[in-house]
């Protein structure tokens, strides 16, 4: 019996709540509203308002409070409704969560889990369609993961809670209706994964783009790698694949300049330059705030055809 990505996220939360009573969920409208995207629906009734804690519109303070509660021995899961609003909380995430362990000489840790939805594709326009994974992946001290599959939607929160570091989990509303089985109830948050073997070109991606990339791979015999972990990166499967295909394209929903894709390209050129038979390429978000109309939004985002075209160009 398959479940949706949304249900997998919910199941992961339930599992986490059952496993450890120090776990609680805090964020805007996670409780009484039923979760902005209905991810936490039913949890308030089951676990009560202490553990399913609605927060006022105060991203800086409630994210900071989650960090503080983690330092204080709890296991908070903080939900920032979308990555767009997380800009208001960055100070706490970077200056406290990411730095605390190092600057205290290893005395304190902040094992907070921060979930946020990200990405475009639902015509929510400029301010509600950002993809800022690259910003978070730039920051030492954070672990950053992106859930692209049913397994990861379910398992990443559990793995993140088992990790003593602050972990940012990106979730993709564009995938909420994706269906599948939970095949591996427990996942790591350390490795990238080959999702489709192929021979002609390596296609590296993460998040919602995984599915477009898998589709494109069919047309070009691509080997698809889901990064899964955006920080710290696991490059081993990428290098291995590039050694075979000698070509790579990175597919990334973020803005092109300064994207995760750029970092992957840099790593490949540092680590596997002599394996390459062709330049690297990337298919990214166009450098524009996402416009509202469907045709323009689609034009701004990576699409199957663009990936196929980029691959064909590379294959000459």
């Amino acid at each position, binding site marked *: 019996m398959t479940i949706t990505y949304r249900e997998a996220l919910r199941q992961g939360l339930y599992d986490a709540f059952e496993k450890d009573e120090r776990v609680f969920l805090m964020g*805007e*409208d996670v*409780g*009484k*509203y*039923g979760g*902005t995207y*209905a991810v936490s629906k039913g949890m308030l009734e089951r676990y009560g308002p202490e553990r399913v804690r*609605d927060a*006022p*519109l*105060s*991203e*800086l*303070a409630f994210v900071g409070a989650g960090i503080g509660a983690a330092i204080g021995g709890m296991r908070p899961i903080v939900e920032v409704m979308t990555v*767009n*609003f997380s800009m*208001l909380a960055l100070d706490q995430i970077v200056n406290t969560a990411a730095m605390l362990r190092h600057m205290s000489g290893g005395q304190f840790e902040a094992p907070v889990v921060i979930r946020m939805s990200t990405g475009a594709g*639902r*015509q*929510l*326009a*400029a*301010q*509600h369609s950002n993809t800022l994974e690259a910003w978070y992946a730039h920051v030492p001290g954070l672990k950053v993961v992106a859930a692209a599959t049913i397994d990861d939607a379910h398992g990443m929160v559990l793995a993140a809670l088992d990790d003593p570091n602050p972990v940012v989990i990106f979730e993709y509303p564009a995938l909420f209706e994706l269906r599948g089985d939970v095949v591996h109830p427990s996942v790591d948050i350390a490795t990238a994964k080959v999702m489709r073997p192929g021979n002609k070109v390596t296609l590296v991606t993460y998040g919602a783009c995984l599915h477009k990339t898998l589709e494109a791979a069919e047309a070009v015999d691509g080997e698809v790698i889901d990064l899964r972990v955006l920080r710290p990166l696991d490059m081993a499967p990428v290098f291995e694949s590039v050694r075979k295909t000698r070509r790579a394209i990175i597919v990334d929903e973020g803005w092109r300049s300064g994207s995760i894709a750029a970092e992957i390209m840099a790593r490949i050129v540092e680590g596997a330059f002599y394996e390459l038979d062709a330049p690297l390429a990337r298919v990214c978000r*166009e*450098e*524009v*705030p996402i*416009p*509202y*109309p*469907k*045709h*323009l939004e689609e*034009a*701004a985002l990576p699409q199957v055809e663009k990936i196929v075209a980029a691959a064909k160009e590379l294959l000459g």
Partner: protein
Amino acid sequence: MSARFEIAPPPSGPVPYPRELSIKLLTDMLRIRRLEEKCAELYGAGKIRGFLHLYIGEEAVAAGSLPALAPEDNVVATYREHGHALLRGVSMNAIMAEMFGKREGCSRGRGGSMHLFDAAARFFGGNAIVGGGLPLAVGLALASQMQKRKRVTACYFGEGAVAEGAFHESMNLAQLWHLPVAWFLENNHYAMGTSVERSESQTDFCIKAAAFGMPTLKVDGMDVVAVHEVAKRACAQVRAGEGPVFVEFNTYRFRAHSMFDAELYRDKAEVELWKTRGPIHTFSARLKDQGDLTEEQFLEIDRAVMAEVQRAVDFAEAGAWEPVEHLLKDVYAP
């Protein structure tokens, strides 16, 4: 249930305006209502997409307050801003085209429901970040002050925004620098599913504003007359150079937060109770009572409004899509 207004009687008593003004206020409220009812329908039909936040129930606030502003004033609003844009003078055509995402829209179709803009109307949006408009309003007011212009910046925001740091910092700057801002708080008692009692340790927002040393006014936001009087007073004070004023309009949204809201967080009975205080029917009843309006006249106004809405839909339907080649236009100045 919300503690306030629960037992308050609906607005009543004589309307102290010349008939022309009264009819304008009524018509304005109806224009918002009918426009938005149509939007809800078009959302269902897939013509409008993304997020759509309806103002239905709260019309008296926009209808009563916007006429207190002069053309040279500035207006800053939120994502629940169709009514504000409309009554600020953005044509219904341009608003509807925007919601369709057509290039004839007031933001060239790029913004959609949450990002209505109009430079000519000095309508500065449409902001989808809760609290995001407040610093902007401070800056617009600072510009007018430095330019020595007698210009009011009216900034609308929901009570949910009050918990944000942006509210606190903006209030302080406005009062500290004595800036010409009219803060118009639309307290509809809920931020999505979170009622004020569950988000604010102090639910009397005037007390919060007063703690900055700011003059405050509180008014029944379901009563267009009360709104209009208070808004005029507030704008006059601001225009006179007396610094910012904070006005709390107590109101209620009759519909869901957005089109994705199952409304698990409030009783139907509460909604029904507030509906008895609906700004349109209570105001028309008063006008009828004092002989300024007949049912026939009401229906005639309504028909005219419906016709305007239909023209807007036709206009939007006939509009063009921005060519894909223009995708990167206006990211930077040329």
